[in-house]
């Protein structure tokens, strides 16, 4: 609105790769067909995976919870359509490792029958807690790519927050899902922002959007004019197109000039950042009661004849959407989930679309050829100029390559956002980000090893302390017994001269009966034990049974003898 007076800042570095966005913006968003089977990973977000709440064979309705996030940092998962639960097993999931993880399969019935659902009445009068609860129930996680549970971010105390930033930059080439979302659902997005404002009570709210999306900018501005009076303080801020301006830290720097501290989060400087897709999902959940069961995904790439954006049900196999976009299988060289800079190759087209899948690129050979061979670093310093995080990529490269993790950490490798700008400009084709990812992984591993070794040390020390204490206790008991025995001896020695003199006959027998009683008890236990051993031996048909029987008889004899002497002593 008052964007003309807005002072923009800039971040260091950045690149201008070929945008390749126009291919997929020619057609409006189309709803993808319901596939026969949906494959839903129970972990589509950062944090603890959800616990499956259904069994194979269960009938589920659209919007029914099928996996429950039990931890605070976790997310619910809902059935994207009605059908029957198939298997719950490990399937290939969209992850950089290409590994498999637990997925719930739903065999769809095509009826798309909804469960009872409704949004909050008068949601703009609701209190923050019930709004956050509504977001948590809907299983919303960050839809820009990282997948951090939204209710956790929304639970930051409002007193800490003064600025809400809506990330609509969408700086990565090829991806246009946010662009189309804003063009077609601008009003819903503004309403979603109002909900977030109600929760976080920020003083101001900026929608950061790159200037390569004029239609989306216009749509947002029209929606703002129609919907709001000026008190809501939402500003559409148009920023220059530069990769990676959509990085959270970079966008904050552009809009506010502030930098997120090392190892910190935006909330440390009073800012919360949400992706525009997430905001739309919040609106749907709060106002309409629709949980996160579908998302807008860009299907593009040279191997796709009609690239466009689809509204896809979560769990839809990539191959199903590709065929709707008329992909030519023989032309597909690589399938990439996410953008060409930060996305990853998926091995199989059966991999499902998840909450974070904003784009699928079916790339032809010419489009994304195999990376050229890595050459020696010529120390040109172009990576340093491109780095948006003001790091020293070349230094980090040497440290990562020689596994010098200590130095890599000292040079703040943890602040690397893995945007790939350094690799993009490297004239020697060094896969720099791969080296940083490796070093970061090693550092994480070393930290967790260190933690478990400290834990082991602690347990070892506690165990030793316990053993020492037990020995000390045993020693003390033994000592006490020895002392008691010594006292008794002394008493005995002292007693005999006294007995005849006083003629007290009761003292001695009482001691005697006590001792005899003990003896009887001990004999009884020995008999019991011998019986047990014998029973066990007989059960297993051991040869020792006979010997044990003999032993038992002996013990019984002893017991009777002891009992006899006790009787005598008593009488």
């Amino acid at each position, binding site marked *: 609105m008052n964007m003309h007076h807005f002072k923009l800042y800039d971040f260091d570095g950045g690149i201008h790769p070929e945008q390749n966005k126009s291919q997929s913006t020619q057609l409006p968003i189309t709803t993808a067909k319901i596939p026969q089977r949906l494959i839903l990973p129970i972990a589509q977000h950062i944090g603890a995976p959800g616990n499956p709440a259904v069994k194979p064979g269960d009938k589920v309705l659209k919007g029914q919870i099928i996996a429950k996030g039990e931890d605070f940092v976790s997310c619910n998962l809902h059935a994207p359509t009605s059908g029957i639960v198939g298997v719950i097993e490990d399937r290939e999931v969209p992850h950089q490792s290409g*590994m498999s993880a637990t997925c719930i399969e739903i065999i769809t019935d095509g009826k798309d029958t909804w469960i009872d659902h409704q949004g909050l009445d008068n949601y703009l009068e609701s209190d923050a807690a019930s709004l956050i609860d509504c977001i948590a129930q809907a299983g919303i996680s960050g839809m820009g790519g990282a997948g951090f549970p939204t209710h956790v971010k929304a639970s930051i105390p409002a007193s800490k927050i003064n600025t809400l930033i809506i990330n609509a930059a969408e700086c990565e080439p090829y991806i246009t899902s946010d662009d189309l979302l804003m063009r077609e659902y601008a009003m819903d997005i503004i309403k979603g922002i109002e909900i977030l404002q109600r929760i976080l009570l920020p003083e101001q709210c900026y929608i950061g959007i790159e200037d390569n999306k004029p239609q989306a900018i216009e749509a947002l501005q029209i929606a703002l004019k129609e919907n709001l009076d000026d008190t809501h303080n939402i500003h559409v801020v148009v920023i220059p197109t530069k990769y990676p301006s959509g990085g959270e830290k970079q966008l904050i720097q552009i809009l506010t000039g502030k930098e997120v501290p090392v190892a910190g989060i935006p909330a440390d400087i009073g800012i919360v950042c949400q992706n525009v897709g997430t905001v739309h999902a919040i609106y749907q959940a709060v106002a309409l009661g629709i949980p996160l069961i579908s998302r807008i995904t860009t299907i593009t790439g040279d191997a796709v004849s009609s690239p466009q954006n689809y509204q896809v049900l979560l769990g839809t196999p990539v191959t199903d959407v590709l065929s709707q976009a008329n992909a030519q299988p023989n032309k597909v060289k690589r399938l990439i989930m996410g953008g060409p800079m930060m996305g990853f190759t998926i091995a199989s087209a059966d991999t499902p679309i998840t909450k974070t899948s904003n784009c699928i690129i079916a790339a032809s050979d010419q489009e994304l050829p195999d990376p050229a*061979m890595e050459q020696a670093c010529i120390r040109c310093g172009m990576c340093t100029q491109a780095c948006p995080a003001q790091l020293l990529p070349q230094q980090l490269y040497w440290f990562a*390559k020689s596994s010098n993790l200590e130095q890599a950490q000292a040079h703040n490798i943890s602040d690397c956002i893995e945007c790939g700008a350094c690799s993009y400009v490297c004239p020697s084709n060094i*896969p720099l980000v791969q*080296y940083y990812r490796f070093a970061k992984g090693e550092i994480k*591993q070393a930290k967790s090893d260190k933690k478990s070794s*400290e834990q082991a*040390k602690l*347990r*070892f020390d506690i165990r030793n302390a316990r053993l020492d204490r037990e020995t000390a206790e045993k020693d003390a008991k033994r000592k006490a017994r020895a002392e008691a025995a010594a006292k008794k001896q002394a008493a005995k020695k002292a007693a005999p001269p006294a007995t005849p003199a006083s003629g007290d006959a009761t003292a001695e027998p009482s001691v005697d009966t006590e001792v005899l009683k003990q003896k009887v008890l001990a004999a009884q236990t020995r008999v019991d034990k011998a019986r047990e051993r014998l029973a066990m031996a007989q059960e297993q048909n051991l040869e020792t049974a006979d010997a044990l029987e003999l032993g038992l008889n002996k013990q019984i004899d002893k017991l009777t003898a002891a009992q006899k002497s006790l009787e005598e002593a008593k009488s």
Partner: protein
Amino acid sequence: MSLILISIFALVALAILFGAILGFAAVRFKVEGNPIVDQLDALLPQTQCGQCSYPGCRPYAQAISEGNEKINKCPPGGESTIAAIADLLGVDPEPLDAEHGEEKDVTLVAVIREDECIGCTKCIQACPVDAILGAAKQMHTVISDECTGCDLCVEPCPVDCIDMIPVGTTMQSWHWPKPAAAQMIATDKVQTI
């Protein structure tokens, strides 16, 4: 003459003053125990496996600090630990002493075949980190998160029902491998073929 007396007096006074400061510092800032033991202990892997022939990592660290023990007796730590200790002590790293065992590539964790366990508690007594749960004549089990993979429970088991299983990579523990070094000049490669 008085000049000499004054200077002697001044020097004695200074000596007493500094002596007092040093004496105070020696008492006030006394370091308990040998700090090098803590540093060595921190470098050791804390598996408490006893393969070095000492009953735990700290006793071995103690022995090294006293100077009468070699630094190459820790198979779980392997070459990297030896290098770190050598670095700390300023001595030359030595290859791992094979007499005490070999370095394993994979992390192992003990798993009890619970059907076969007779509940003898022998493994519980052997475990240095109390990672085995059970009671006499009750089935035992290993708390795998706490197991250091030290192997000490395997030998005492009378029915051999404990296996050492490699810990697999999970999606949480997975991380990117090091890029394969292709540090060859393209023209060189053509020539070598």
